[in-house]
């Protein structure tokens, strides 16, 4: 009898251990700073949940294509993306509406992050402001229209239309030039007329930082997440506060439809959005917090898109407008700017 009891206890323990090892959450995230995210987010969560986090990275197009290809039997349980990419997936019916009662920190998020694409298909976890970084010893930038003015002629770079910053720049340039309409036709044409005065249309903020440190470029629009590349540099770079305001965007977290791993995914979302984790991530300057309860020092805040006043003032571009008009923008851009 004793042997039988010992055997059944051992079997139970083995089954429990196997279950913990089987508890796995597959997430799809940006490739950016994954070592830091592992220490600040994934490792602590794995200890709490007794599970394994499988991290998949890649650019947005690859990650979206993978979610779409595996729609019938999702490989990815939870993903983080830009709000317009999330909306594109939602429109294809690949996401499930979130039950925010399972994410208590949801109530602490800034209002714009609570339901950014509608039907609770995603929640925001981080913001970024976009403005113009410039060499304050060589030029003064007061308006987005200055990007096309003679004072930065031959020394300005713009983000490529195919990246996240491209449409945001068009949005603010349109505002500055008084061009109405979401098709940005007049603004793209204006850039086309000045294309020879523009050094390049950059794809990555690291490329822009290199060009600015090499004195090739003295002004360019860039996301605040890249500000640390400039703030400690040998040249006096300044973050512009144009009269039209700053633009920006939001990154969101979402859950794939029918992944069967919802409980663990909710647990991870709550952990990521909690005050404690968002503060830790903010202090490491990995992401700007969407949780309004997060408090960081002025020094940390300087590198982030931080605080309700700033976040509420951002001239964001509607996610739906981006998806509906992107092909048209790219066609016009190819015709007038890179042709």
């Amino acid at each position, binding site marked *: 009898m004793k042997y039988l009891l010992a055997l059944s206890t051992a079997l139970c323990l083995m089954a429990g251990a196997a279950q913990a090892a089987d508890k796995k959450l597959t997430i799809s995230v940006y490739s950016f700073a994954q070592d830091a995210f592992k220490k600040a987010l994934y490792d602590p969560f794995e200890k709490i949940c007794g599970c394994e986090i499988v991290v998949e990275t890649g*650019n947005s*197009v*690859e990650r*979206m*294509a993978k979610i779409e290809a595996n729609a019938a039997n999702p490989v990815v349980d939870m993903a983080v993306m830009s709000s317009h990419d999330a909306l594109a997936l939602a429109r294809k019916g690949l996401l499930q509406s979130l039950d925010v009662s399972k994410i208590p920190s949801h109530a602490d998020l800034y209002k714009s992050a609570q339901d950014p694409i509608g039907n609770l298909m995603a929640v925001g976890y981080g913001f970024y402001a976009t403005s113009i970084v410039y060499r304050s010893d060589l030029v003064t930038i007061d308006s987005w229209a200055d990007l096309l003015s003679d004072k930065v002629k*031959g020394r300005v770079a713009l983000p*490529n239309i*195919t990246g996240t910053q491209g449409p945001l720049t068009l949005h603010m340039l349109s505002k500055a030039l008084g061009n109405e309409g979401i098709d940005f036709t007049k603004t793209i044409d204006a850039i086309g007329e000045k*294309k020879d005065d*523009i*050094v*390049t*249309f*950059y*794809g990555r903020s690291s490329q822009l930082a*290199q060009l600015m440190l*090499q*004195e*090739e470029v003295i002004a360019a629009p860039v996301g605040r997440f890249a500000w640390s590349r400039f703030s400690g540099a040998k040249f006096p770079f300044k973050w512009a506060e144009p009269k039209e305001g700053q633009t920006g965007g939001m990154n969101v977290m979402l859950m794939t439809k029918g992944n069967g791993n919802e409980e663990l995914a909710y647990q991870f979302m709550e952990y990521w959005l909690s005050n404690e984790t968002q503060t830790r991530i903010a202090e490491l300057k990995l992401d700007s917090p969407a949780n309004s309860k997060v408090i960081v020092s002025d020094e940390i805040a300087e590198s982030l898109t931080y605080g309700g006043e700033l976040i509420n003032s951002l001239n964001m571009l509607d996610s739906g407008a981006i998806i509906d008009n992107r092909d048209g923008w*790219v066609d016009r851009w*190819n*015709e007038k700017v*890179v*042709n």
Partner: protein
Amino acid sequence: MFQNQREGLALALPAAIFTAALFLLPVGILLSEAFKVDGSWSLQGYIDFASKPLNQVVFLRTLKLGFLVALVSAVIGYACAFCIVNLDGKHRGRVFGLIVLPLMISPVARTYAWIVILGRTGIVNDAIVGLGLSETPIRLLFTETAVFLGLLQLFMPLMIISLVSAMENLPKDAVPAARVLGAKWLQVFTRVILPLTKDGLVLGGTLVFTGSLTAYITPAILGGSKVLMLETLLYQRVNVANDFVSAGIIATILIVMSFGANILLKRISSARS
């Protein structure tokens, strides 16, 4: 070598299966998509591609830069190769080593060096301003000139190596004999050296031209989105638009251009002889 043909085929079979399964089949599947519209075979994709002005500009730019890089490589390559084969053994080895050395360095490192050289504060602009050719630095980066220089530096060693190999087989007394008989240097080159080294030129020309057509890193870094070439456009179609059909069309065009260049060069060389 083998007692029967079957033994030879059996030995070649693993390599053939490997190539077919891991190269020909996937490439075939990928490229076949470029010949389909709504599931049926069609060339409409190519017609649509060719009708877009941007694609026309990019195609002609790619062709032009490939041709120019091959042409200038051949001109400089002949001069270099002629010098190298006339050096004594010890010096020849050293110079040849210097020619080969860049091939051992990553194209990324080589291309990034051009960013420093061609930048506003680089040595080229320092020299231009210093010599009074321009009052302010001129923009060289993100121009066709920058891409041309990058590709030339990247592929010229291949032309030189091909021409050195061809010239080493040139009879030692062929050039002196032509000179003694009164031929001028241009005649020596066109009537003696060129016909006798045409195989090296065809090989080098094909390597340089196809290399220039298919290089990605150099046009991407030195040209960016302002100087799109077919290979950077292909990357953009896949990575930005997830458009594998356009990517397949561009890949097919690049393959056809590469084979076309090789056939053309062979025809030209055989026509001369």
